[in-house]
Every structure is written in C-alpha cells, then in structure tokens.
C-alpha cells in the first residue's frame, strides 16, 4: 500500500497532465462534435457536423492524399532506411563518417529542409531537373504540378531517413554473425541470407518502423504546409488568404484540413468531427504497436 502511494506521488505530474491534456480534451472533443461553435456562440446541432463530413469534398481529398503518403512514402522510407543501414553496417572503413552524413538531414528543421527542397526542385533555379533531362528523364515542375507534388514531398522524406537508419543499424548489428557464416557454408547467397536470416531477426524492428511511420504520417503537416505556401508564392498581405494544398489541393493532408476548419475558419465543432476521425485511425495503429510492446515485455 505504501508502495502504491509512493508511485502515485512520483507519477502525479504526468497523471495531472494525462487528465488535463488527454482525457478532458478527448471527452470535450466528442461533445463539441455535436455543436456549432465559432469561439463566440455555442449551439447544439445534433448530427449536422457528422453529416457534413460525408459531403465535404475537401475532407475526402485530404484523406486520399494522406492515404497516398501512408501507402507510398512510408514503405519507401522504411525500405530506403533499411537499405542504407544494410550498406553502412557492411562498410569496414569510414562507416562512422557515412553514418554521420546520412543521419544529418533528419535533424534539419522541417521548415528549413522544405524551403531548401522547394528551391532545389524548382525547374528554373535548382539543378535537379537539369540533371534529369540531361540523362533523358522527364523533368517535372515538382511542387507546381499536382501530379508530382506528393513525389516532391516523398523525396524530402527519403532525404531525412536518419532515424529509421539508426534503428535498423542497431537491429542489424544484433543479428548473430554465426548465422551468416553457417548459411555461407551451406551455399546461401546474399539475397537468400537476407530473406532467411536478416529479415526474420529484424522483423519486430521492421514492424515498429512501419507502424511509427504510419502514425507520424497521419500527423503530416509542416512539410505540406510550407511547401504549398512557398511554391504558391502566397503573400500574407491584406486581402490574400493562404489556403493549404497548392497546387490544386494535391498536398492537402488531413491534419491541415482540420487546422484550416478549426483555427482559420473557426468551424470548431466540425473540426472536432475531423479530430475524432483522426483519433480513431491513429488509435487503431497505436493498438498494433502496443501489442508489439507487450510481446517485447514478455520476452524480456
């Protein structure tokens, strides 16, 4: 009993935070989703906000864009991170220097990195398109073309895979060396060794990287917002209002639409509907992750 009290004392700051910044807001969000609220008047509207959600074209565009990033960018980042980690752990000389270089972009502030990429991929000013057309590849107007803007964001995502790489490097170095030696004696080539030894051993880490990648991408906000703002040349002067998604709503993600509704258009009740949808999806992936932690706990 004394132990429980002592634990309560140590945990009290976090418990207070959990109630104030998680439980209360969540309940409150559910309540507001049935209200019309614009910071001044509060009016119950029943299911109106929910009905509107199913008719809201922009919300569904935002869902499609976010899904695109989850389905295309997340796996590409995980694969690329694994590939780079595989390469660095095999290097005998200079591994430390390469690790530093490959990790560095992960620390670059998102706004700064995005600004750099918009300028870098701009056909008129950056070298990327010149190089692409020199080798006979198409040279798109990345952040100005709705068909390519999400690929531009994906390139930015691939540039900053440092965290993923480090987690994979740690996992790869944990694979027992004898397994590879035994496989080599049995005549298994590199690819066989990878699929039958490396993959099974690092599978939990792979799952972890995928699930956390999905959850991070569900929050995808800054890069899309800054890229659209800079590429569209939006001015914040009077009379011009920034709308996210440039070009042509192609970079509009779900959290951006939520922010737009709640804090730019002050449709706070409707924003709460969007928040609950986001919560449901994020929670589903979090449960997958929690199961993994439970397994890891039981093993240790």
């Amino acid at each position, binding site marked *: 009993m004394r*132990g429980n009290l002592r634990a309560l004392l140590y945990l009290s700051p976090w418990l207070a935070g*959990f109630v104030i910044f998680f439980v209360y*807001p969540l309940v409150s969000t559910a309540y507001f989703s049935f209200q019309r609220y614009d910071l001044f008047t509060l009016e119950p509207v029943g299911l109106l906000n929910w009905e509107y959600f199913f008719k809201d074209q922009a919300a569904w565009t935002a869902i499609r864009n976010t899904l695109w990033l989850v389905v295309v960018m997340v796996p590409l980042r995980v694969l690329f991170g694994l590939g780079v980690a595989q390469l660095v752990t095999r290097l005998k000389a200079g591994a430390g220097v*390469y690790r530093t270089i490959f990790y560095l972009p992960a620390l670059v502030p998102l706004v700064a*990195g995005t*600004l*750099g990429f918009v300028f870098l991929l701009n056909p008129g000013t950056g070298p990327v398109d010149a190089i692409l057309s020199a080798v006979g590849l198409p040279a798109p107007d990345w952040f100005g073309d709705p068909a390519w803007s999400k690929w531009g964001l994906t390139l930015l995502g691939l540039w900053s895979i440092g965290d993923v790489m480090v987690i994979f490097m740690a996992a790869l170095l944990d694979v027992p060396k004898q397994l590879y030696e035994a496989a080599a004696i049995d005549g298994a080539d590199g690819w066989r060794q990878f699929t039958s030894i490396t993959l099974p051993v690092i599978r939990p880490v792979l799952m972890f990287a995928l699930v956390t990648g999905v959850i991070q991408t569900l929050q995808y906000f800054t890069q899309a*917002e800054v890229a659209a703002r800079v590429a569209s040349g939006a001015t914040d002067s009077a009379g011009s209002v920034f709308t996210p998604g440039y070009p042509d709503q192609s970079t509009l993600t779900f959290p951006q639409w939520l922010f737009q509704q709640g804090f730019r258009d002050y449709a706070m009740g409707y924003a709460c509907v969007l*928040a609950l949808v986001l919560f449901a999806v994020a929670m589903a992936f979090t449960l997958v992750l929690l199961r993994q932690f439970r397994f890891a706990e039981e093993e240790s």
Partner: protein
Amino acid sequence: MTPTARRTATRTALLWVARHALSIALALMFLGPLVFIALTALMSDRQALTSDLWPHTWNWGNFAEIFEKAPLLTWIRNTLLYSVLATAFMLVSSIPVAYALARFRFRGRRLAFLLVITTMMLPPQVVAVPIYLIWARFHLTGTLWPLILPMLLGDAFSIFLLRQFLVTIPREYSDAAKVDGCGEFRTLVRVILPMARPAIAAVALFQFFYCWNDYYGPLLYAGTDLDNWTLSLGLAAFRSVHRVQWNLTMAATLLAMAPVIIVFFFAQKVFIEGVKLTGVK
C-alpha cells in the same frame, strides 16, 4: 591460390568497390541539398533566380541583410526561450515519472506505461480544439506559454525514452544505496541520475531540437504579432511577408539549421544512442 579462392577474392574486392561507390554517391545526394542552400545563400539576388550553381560573387553581406529585413533577433530570442524553458520543465517533471515506471512495483504499472505510449502516439491535432480553448480562457493564446507550461506535467516521449534506459540499470545499484540508508529519492538523485546521464542528455537534446524546429505549435499559438514568432514561423513566411529574394531566404534557412548541425557534430553519440533507445528492445 586455388581458382575458387581467387574467385572469392575477386568477388570480395568487387563488392568492396561497389559498396564504397554507392556510399559516396549517396553521401553526395544527402549533402547536396545542404551545399546547395549554402551556395545560394551567398549569391546575388539576381543570380539566385538562375540555374547557375556557383556564386559569381560571394555576397557575405546577405547574412547581415536578413537581420535588417526581419526581426530575426527577436525570433531567435523567442525560439531560445521556448526551447530552453520547455526542456528544463520537461526534465524536472519527466524523470521521476520514468523512474517510477521503471523501478516501482505498484498496481496499474503496466497500464500506466501503455497509456504513456498511447499519448506519445496521439497526433497533436486530435485534442487541439479543447486545449486551445483552455489557453484562450487564460488569455494565453498569442503567446508561446501554451507550448511551454504543459511541459511541467511531463512529456510522454521523454518519459518513454528515459524509462527504456532506466530499466537497463541493474537493481543492485539502488539496492546497495538503500543498504547504505538512502531513501528512494536520495537513491534517484545520487545513484540513478549520474548513471542515466546519457539518456538524460539524449531526451534533453531531442526536446530542445523538437522545440527549435517546431512549426505546428507556434503556428497555432503565437498569433499574428511578429514579435511573438519563432524562427520556424518567421522562416516559413520569410519570402512572402518581406518580399525578399531567394538568396536571403536561403541565408535565413542556413541560419536556422546552423545551431542544430553544430551541436550534432559535438554530441553525435548522444543522438545516435538516443535514437536506438526509441526502437523496440
């Protein structure tokens, strides 16, 4: 040498060359954007709009000019205030929580840990509306305090990471301290904290740079008054608000990156070890 041995040797050599060639190519691609930003930052505004890569003239004055075009010093001061206070508050509130989760036996310990992971994974946008309304009631919207004050109540990611490290410290150390008559709190401060220095350094750096780089938080709370903005916020609006050229925008971009890159070179190990802790183990 037998023919098979020679073949293996040739293959090993070829693999070595291939790996290093690939590594060098990748390194160029990873460093390219940074070099490109630095070069553009030094160009004249006219040249920045062309596709020439090498500055015709080296305009070091660009770095002075950005301070005249925008209230950069105010933004840097605000960003520092946010980052330093949030980090200090986070450490004070999160370390005891992590310690309790790692060491104490009590009812609901597992549930508490699972809830920490859940809040860590929750997209901040989910609960944004009610939390915004709380701060509006205290008339704190339009300032950075709504981003700093909650750190007094612990940060889920930091608690998680510290807990992952603390469980690896063998129990014998704290048991020995208790035999010597140390209470639980004294044991934490005298024995555990010194041993947990690498993890504490890692969460402090992560928190500091999270705040330094944060865009969403200040966008929500800092309001329209430029004097309350942070560097990230100012940088995103830099080109449009002040109608300045790309070369100056890149100079400001470089300025925002520089502290992060410099600290990383000095504290690389701390970062890498910290990231490793975030993986399942």
